C-alpha cells in the first residue's frame, strides 16, 4: 500500500519574544491509505499543530512532508488550498460551520471551490447528508440543529469531496458522551468503507476506536503502537 502521508524529521517552532517554543520536534510518520489513527497526548503536546501540518493548513519550520508523493513543503498557498479542497476533509471540535448558511450550502461549499456544477453539487451534497442521516435537515441553519447534528453536517462537508484523508481534531470534545459515541460510530462506518481517518483526542475510550495510536509529549512522538482490535459487538 502506498503512503498517503510521509513526514520525515518535521519540526515546528514559534518565536515568542526572545524564547522559542518547539511545538513539534523531529517528528517522523508514515500513514497508509485506509488507516484509522488516533493522536493522543497531554494538552500542549503538539497534537493540533501536527494535525494542522498534516492538513496542509500550516507548513513545517523544517523537515519533509510528502502527500500522495507530492512535496508539500515546496507548495504555494494556492496549491495548498487545492489539496485541502480535494484531498482533505476537516472535522473540528467546534464544528466550524458557516452560521448564516443552511446545511445544504455548508456541505456544498467545498464543491463550489472545486468548480463543480450546481446539479452535481446538489446531488453529491445530498448523498453526503444522507450518509450522515441528515437528508431531512438540508434547509436548517446551524443554530437550528443540535450539537451532534452540527457535527454530522461537518462530517458530511468533509466527506463530500471524497478526500484521501479525514482529519478530526477532538470531534467529540463539545458533545455529551452518548452523542459522542454516535459520532464515533459514524467514523467507524466511514473507516469500514475505506476512508483514511486521523483523529485527535484526549480520551482513551475514544482512541480505542482507532487501529493505531500515536502518543505525543512535548512535541515528540513518545509511542507509536498498533492496537490489536478485540472483536466486540
Amino acid at each position, binding site marked *: 500500500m502506498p503512503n498517503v502521508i510521509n513526514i520525515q524529521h518535521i519540526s515546528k517552532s514559534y518565536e515568542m519574544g526572545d524564547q522559542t517554543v518547539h511545538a513539534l520536534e523531529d517528528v517522523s510518520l508514515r500513514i497508509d491509505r485506509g488507516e484509522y489513527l488516533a493522536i493522543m497526548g497531554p494538552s500542549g503536546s503538539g497534537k493540533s499543530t501536527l494535525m*494542522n501540518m498534516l*492538513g496542509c*493548513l*500550516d507548513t513545517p519550520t523544517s523537515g519533509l512532508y510528502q502527500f500522495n508523493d507530492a512535496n508539500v513543503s515546496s507548495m504555494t*498557498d*494556492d496549491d495548498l*488550498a*487545492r489539496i*485541502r*479542497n*480535494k484531498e482533505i476533509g*476537516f472535522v*473540528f471540535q467546534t464544528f*466550524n*460551520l*458557516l*452560521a*448564516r*448558511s443552511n446545511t445544504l450550502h455548508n456541505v456544498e*461549499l*467545498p464543491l*463550489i*471551490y*472545486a*468548480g*463543480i*456544477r450546481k446539479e452535481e453539487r446538489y446531488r453529491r451534497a445530498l448523498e453526503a447528508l444522507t450518509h450522515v442521516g441528515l437528508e431531512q435537515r438540508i434547509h436548517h441553519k446551524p443554530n437550528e440543529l443540535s450539537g451532534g447534528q452540527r457535527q454530522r453536517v461537518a462530517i458530511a*462537508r468533509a466527506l463530500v*469531496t471524497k478526500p484521501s484523508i479525514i482529519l478530526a481534531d477532538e470531534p467529540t470534545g463539545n458533545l455529551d458522551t452518548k452523542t459522542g459515541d454516535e459520532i464515533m460510530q459514524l467514523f467507524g462506518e466511514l473507516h469500514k468503507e475505506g476512508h483514511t481517518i486521523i483523529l485527535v483526542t484526549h480520551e482513551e475510550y475514544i482512541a480505542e476506536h482507532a487501529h493505531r495510536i500515536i502518543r505525543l509529549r512535548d512535541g515528540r512522538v513518545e509511542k507509536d503502537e498498533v492496537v490489536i482490535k478485540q472483536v466486540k459487538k
Partner: protein
Amino acid sequence: MKRNFSSFWFEIREGIGMSFSAIRANKMRSSLTTLGIVIGIVSVTLMGTAIEGLDRAFNENITKLGADNLYVQKFAWFDNDNWWKFRNRKDIKMEQFFVVQREITSATLVTPVVGTVKTVQHKSKDLPGVFTVGTSDQFFPLNNMNVEYGRVFTEAEAFGGRPVVVLGSAVAENVFPNESPVGKNVRVGTHTYRCIGVLEKQGSFLGLFSLDNRVFVPINSFFTRFGSEWGIQIHVKAGDSKNMDETKEELRGILRKVRRVPPGIEDDFAINQQDLFIQTFNAIGLVIAGIGLFITALSLFVGAIGIMNIMFVTVKERTKEIGIRKAIGARRKTILLQFLIESSSLSLFGGILGIIISYPLSLLINQFIPTSMPIAIIVVAILISLIVGVVSGLLPAIRASKLDPVEALRYE
C-alpha cells in the same frame, strides 16, 4: 482552464449570495455606512438632471434667437461691467439703418427695432405693460414669426407710418377675449391703431418674459406717435450661419464708417449674437457641474472611507469564517473576490438608494425647469458606486485574503 473559469463563476455567485445575506443581517449598519455614497449619488444624479433641464431650456430658446441673427445695439450682452460706457454711446439712428440696408450685400434681412412699454386697450379691456415694438416688415421673417390670423404689415406700411398693429397672441386673448381682433381698432398708449393680424403663440424666452405679450407697429408710426428721439437696434440675418463672420465684418465696416469711428479706436456699438447666450449657458452649466462634482467627490470620498472602515470591521468579525473557508479550499483570490463583491454590493446598495431618493427630487426640479433624470446618469451612478465599492474594499479584502488559516480558525 475550464474548471478554473467555472469555479471563478461559482465563486462570484457565492460572493453575491453571501454579501446579500451579510447586508440583510446588518441592515442598519449597512444603510448608515453607505450614507456617503447615497449623498454622492443623489448629488451626481441631481446635477445631471439640472444640466439636462438647462440643456433642454437652452435648445428650445436658442432657436428663438436664430443661429444666424446679428443684433446691433449700444449694449453688449452679458457685459455688466461697462454699463456706463455703453450708456453714453451715441444712439443708433434710422439714417444709419438705411445706410446698412443699402450697402450690405451678405445679409438676407435687415430691420430696425425700437421698443417701449404701453397700455393696450379695446372697449373696457385694457392691458398695461405691453411691450410695443416699432419695426419693419422684415422683422417677422427674421424671427421666424408667422400670423395666426390676418397679416403682418408691408414694407410700404412700415416706412409710410400707417397706424396698423400686429398683436402678440397673449395681447389678443386678453384684449379681445370673445371676438376676432382683425379689423378692429385698439388704443396703444393714447393712439388708435387698426389691428391687421395676430401672431402665433411664441412662448417665453428662458421662462423670463413672455414673447406673446407684445404688439408690433410700423417703425415710422412709432416715431411719429411715441417720439422721434428714440435710439434703435438693427437686426440682421446673415442667411447662412457659415457666413456669419463675413457678414459681421461687413456690418462692422459699414457701421464704423457711418458712425465715423476713427481707425484704431474701438467700436462704439456692439454686434451681439446667439454665441453669447451659448457661452453664458455653458458657463452656468459649468458652475452647476463644478458644484455638483465637488459635493459628489466629497461625499463619495467620505462614503469610500466609511465602506473601507466597515469592511475592516467585517473582516475582523468574520476572521473565523475566513479560516473555515480557507480550510475547505478557498484560495487567496477566492477570499479577495468575496470581500470585493461584498464591498461593491454595499456601495451599489447605497447607489441604488441614492437613485431612488433622487427620483422624487428630480420631479421637484422639474417644477422649475422642465427636465427628467437622464438614463445615462443612472448608468454612470451605478458604475461610480461599483468602482467606489471595489476601490474602498481593496485593502480590507487583501487583508482578509492574506490571513493565516490556522490563526484565523483559532480566532474567537
